[in-house]
């Protein structure tokens, strides 16, 4: 592999972003205030499924502070009542015919202040004719189930897709011949990423030029611009999407939401800027949810513990509109990487996607396009197999992990893993945890009637979508542009298409360029989050920023370095072939005294220096990076829990996480992302679930009901590192942003179920709340998809 030219700028340097944030000087969307700006508020459906009989907006229009009231019918007149989703479905901007989930957008009020806009919502009268709601995904395909998407021509049922991967026949053969087969039903419950900043926008349409500027909570400003162009008919050069500081994304801010479009239409109608910020309930009830995978897994093995095959059957609840944001060719995301980190002969999975009367989404929570669900399934199955065989889960994993010499490795469903040393990562985690001692402690405690659990998960992700030949969203190939300009004094500006919601790109990407050019990261400014100032690219999600845009940054810096070589040769009147790149300079081979740094070269490139033929002046370059493959980070996680069988309360005592994401540019930032993902994993395993009653009422519409982990539910994370560079990434890096969210829930659940083994509890579904754990001990487990009433 190629190594960074100069590794010194890599390291845990403080973030460039922080000086503004610690002073309270960030600029989030709700901080944007424009002269004459109006405020929008959304009227939402109180019911999950109903026909709209009538909407009366007269009283709202008469409110003295209201400037506009927009309904679906009015949008239909402009051809804007429906919009495309990122999965090729359509979604109602404002409902015209029916409402299909509780919280669906019905009307939009534009008023002179926030409070009046809310007041006016109360003045709108909507008559609904209730319809039976499809809440239980397993009943969505029943003959008598209500048809949710009667807007789609020719649609006879609630099926969205049937999809499969792997070799069914070979897998069936493996299972038929296997000595041991273990199966389990499991639910990955509906969850929500709940970034602390909700979604919102400020839209300003210039009445004179027709130009739209929208400040928006988006992780994908360029993809959004293209979609706005498609929906509104405005040409892209008349649309500027600015994604300023964004208060967390985690996938929630990839899709386009009706509120964004309503703010735009509001500005068109009123001629003034319009701000729309949803509240927390709106965020939890209407924006993109995650998971909701109803899975059956089976694992086949020999009696001595050699894993032979895996199969899975999944029912995927996508809600009322298929709004998942993922590569087009993969309706179940990358779920078919579910063979995980193990060397096995055959695998097959089939996924059926269905509509239900719930909020749309599906891929929206640091999930690496459904790899979260895949890792959970395989890691639960391996633990269940260990239980069946009476084997130690660590030893069983070690026995079956892929070996370093098998890379690059093509898994049974077709993914080509780029690099890995899995046994090393697992050994490192076991050493940090003191695994043998933990098992001894567990045995001693069980003798005393105390229940501690030790849970392991090992994960492999495929991140950095992706090769454009295979991966696109709405036909847009997933390649990322980067522009780099080195100014005459040697200060550089890098423009990238991705966008940061806390990942620290302004720092990390400056370090990448600095390493390639022998500059200080302080001398590299990173521009992002503004479509007028950055090249096209698909955005920040799926752990793709460093994997794709970070690669683009390295490649464009190398282009500049190559051009600098020609200029340096002209400066020193030698042949470029006589120069070598060393110590951040181009220097004459064997003559370290004759060298030119990028600063001097940049000045010369802008000067009257006679440049060789074919060499343009200045010191700029542009590139588009089309990744040859995904990168495949991996890791070994160990969770130690203590469970009180009397109350069902689980406390996470320790969590060891060994991550291998290849070369780390800024280890401090990498570790921070891992910390955050581990907290997500604890939350999903123990607390978080978006649940519904049998009428489709959302029961998790606020932070009073949708529980997120705080500092007292989280242990002090114990991290370990191994480094196996990606062979195809320009600097050997792999994505990492979602690794911990993907890998950790299985470790927590395996730990709790390990603790509960003496009670004969084989499996219980997330979230393992006190009630759920207690019920599991009583032999009456709970499931979050079973309606509460």
């Amino acid at each position, binding site marked *: 592999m190629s190594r960074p030219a100069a590794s010194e700028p890599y390291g*845990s340097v*403080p*973030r460039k*972003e*922080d*000086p*503004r*944030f*610690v*002073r*309270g*000087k*960030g*600029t*989030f969307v*709700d*901080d944007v*205030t424009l002269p004459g700006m109006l405020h929008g508020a959304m009227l939402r459906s109180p019911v999950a499924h109903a026909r709209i009989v009538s909407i009366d907006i007269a009283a709202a229009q008469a409110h003295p502070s209201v400037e506009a009231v927009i309904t679906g019918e009015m949008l239909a007149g402009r051809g804007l009542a429906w919009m495309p989703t990122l999965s090729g479905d359509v979604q109602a901007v404002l409902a015209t015919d029916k409402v299909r989930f509780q919280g669906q957008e019905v009307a939009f009020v534009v008023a002179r202040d*926030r*409070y009046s806009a809310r007041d006016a919502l109360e003045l709108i009268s909507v008559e609904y004719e209730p319809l039976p709601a499809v809440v239980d995904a397993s009943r969505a395909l029943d003959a008598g189930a209500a048809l949710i998407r009667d807007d789609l021509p020719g649609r006879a049922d609630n099926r969205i897709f049937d999809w499969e991967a792997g070799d069914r026949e070979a897998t069936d053969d493996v299972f038929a011949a296997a000595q041991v087969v273990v199966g389990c039903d499991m639910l990955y419950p509906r969850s929500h*990423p*709940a*970034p*602390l*900043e*909700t979604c919102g926008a400020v839209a300003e349409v210039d009445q004179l030029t027709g130009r739209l500027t929208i400040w928006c909570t988006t992780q994908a400003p360029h993809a959004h611009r293209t979609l706005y162009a498609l929906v509104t008919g405005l040409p892209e050069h008349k649309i500027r999407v600015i994604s300023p*500081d*964004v*208060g*967390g994304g*985690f996938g929630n801010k990839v899709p386009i939401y009706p509120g964004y479009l309503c703010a735009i239409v509001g500005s068109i109608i009123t001629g003034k800027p319009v701000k729309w910020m949803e*509240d*927390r*309930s709106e965020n939890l009830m209407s924006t993109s949810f995650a998971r909701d995978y109803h899975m059956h897994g089976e694992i086949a093995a020999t009696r001595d513990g050699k894993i032979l095959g895996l199969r899975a059957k999944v029912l995927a609840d996508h809600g009322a509109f298929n709004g998942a944001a993922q590569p087009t060719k993969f309706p179940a995301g990358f779920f078919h990487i579910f063979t995980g980190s193990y060397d096995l002969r055959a695998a097959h999975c089939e996924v059926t996607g269905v509509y239900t009367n719930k909020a749309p989404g599906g891929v929206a929570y640091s999930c690496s396009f459904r790899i979260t669900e895949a890792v959970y399934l395989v890691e639960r199955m391996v633990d269940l197999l260990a239980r069946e065989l009476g084997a130690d889960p660590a030893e069983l994993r070690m026995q079956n992990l892929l070996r370093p010499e098998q890379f690059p490795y093509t898994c049974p469903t077709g993914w080509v893993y780029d690099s890995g040393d899995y046994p090393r990562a697992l050994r490192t985690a076991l050493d940090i945890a003191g695994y043998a001692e933990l098992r001894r402690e567990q045995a001693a405690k069980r003798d005393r009637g105390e229940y501690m659990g030790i849970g392991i998960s090992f994960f492999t992700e495929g991140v950095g979508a992706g090769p454009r030949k295979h991966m696109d969203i709405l036909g847009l190939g997933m390649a990322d542009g980067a522009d780099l300009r080195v100014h005459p004094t040697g200060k550089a500006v890098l423009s990238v298409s991705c966008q940061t*919601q*806390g*990942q*620290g790109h302004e720092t990390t990407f400056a370090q990448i360029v600095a390493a390639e050019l022998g500059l200080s990261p302080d001398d590299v400014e990173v521009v992002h989050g503004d479509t007028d100032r950055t090249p096209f690219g698909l955005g920040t999600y799926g752990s793709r920023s460093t994997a794709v845009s970070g690669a683009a940054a390295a490649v464009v810096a190398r282009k500049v370095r190559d051009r600098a070589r020609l200029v340096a040769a002209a400066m020193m009147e030698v042949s470029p072939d006589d120069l070598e790149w060393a110590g951040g300079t181009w220097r004459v081979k064997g003559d370290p005294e004759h060298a030119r740094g990028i600063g001097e070269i940049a000045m010369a490139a802008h000067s009257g220096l006679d440049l060789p033929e074919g060499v343009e002046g200045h010191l700029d370059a542009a590139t588009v990076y089309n990744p040859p493959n995904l990168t495949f980070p991996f890791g070994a996680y160990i969770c130690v829990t203590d469970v009180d069988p009397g109350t069902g309360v689980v406390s996470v005592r320790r969590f060891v996480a060994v991550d291998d994401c290849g070369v780390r540019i800024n280890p*401090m*930032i990498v*570790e*921070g*992302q*891992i*910390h*955050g*993902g*581990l*907290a*997500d994993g604890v939350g999903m395993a123990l607390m978080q679930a978006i649940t519904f009653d049998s009428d489709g009422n959302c029961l998790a519409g*606020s*932070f*009073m009901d949708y529980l*997120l982990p*705080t*500092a*007292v539910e*989280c242990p*002090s*994370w114990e991290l370990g590192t191994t480094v196996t560079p990606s062979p195809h990434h320009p600097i050997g890096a792999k994505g990492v942003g979602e690794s911990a969210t993907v890998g950790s829930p299985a470790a927590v659940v395996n730990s709790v179920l390990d603790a509960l083994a003496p009670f004969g509890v084989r499996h219980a579904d997330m979230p393992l709340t006190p009630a759920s754990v207690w019920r599991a001990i009583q032999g009456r487990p709970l499931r979050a998809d079973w309606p509460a009433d």
Partner: protein
Amino acid sequence: MRITVNVNGTEYSRVIEPRLLLIHFIRDDLGLTGSHWGCDTSNCGACIVWLDEQPVKSCTVLAPMADGRRILTVEGLARGGRLDPVQQGFARCHGLQCGFCTPGMMLTARWLLDHNPDPTEAQIREAISGQLCRCTGYENIVRSVRWAADHEAAVSADTAGQAGGTRARPR
């Protein structure tokens, strides 16, 4: 109605609707956007400011309740252009990622250190347990507060008249 409040040492007098929430008063009427709104239900703490000497969740305080009182927001943490040790700690220890929860976390941390200059990890976690961070998993927030505790003496020795005792803020 008219209210008068002292925010970060500056007096502001405004005519407002009685139902106005303090967070909206601070952000929209005074233009101090460092304090954030996150949940409406007092769960997340992104809106924490000090009302007199006490951290409060300003999304559940009516602006008229602040009439005649002193408010400290993140914009008032630095003194004389010098960052508070808590602010320095958050930047030094990577105590923030997206930055949205940070102002509230720092204001709670400042209060904690004013009342307990040498907190244990458990005490720091307890102090911020009414607040949410979705990025950091809390680890580096805890380290940041501890860094501030460890460096408090050195930093405040540089600031005349600030050594020792609970500090009345805003000044």
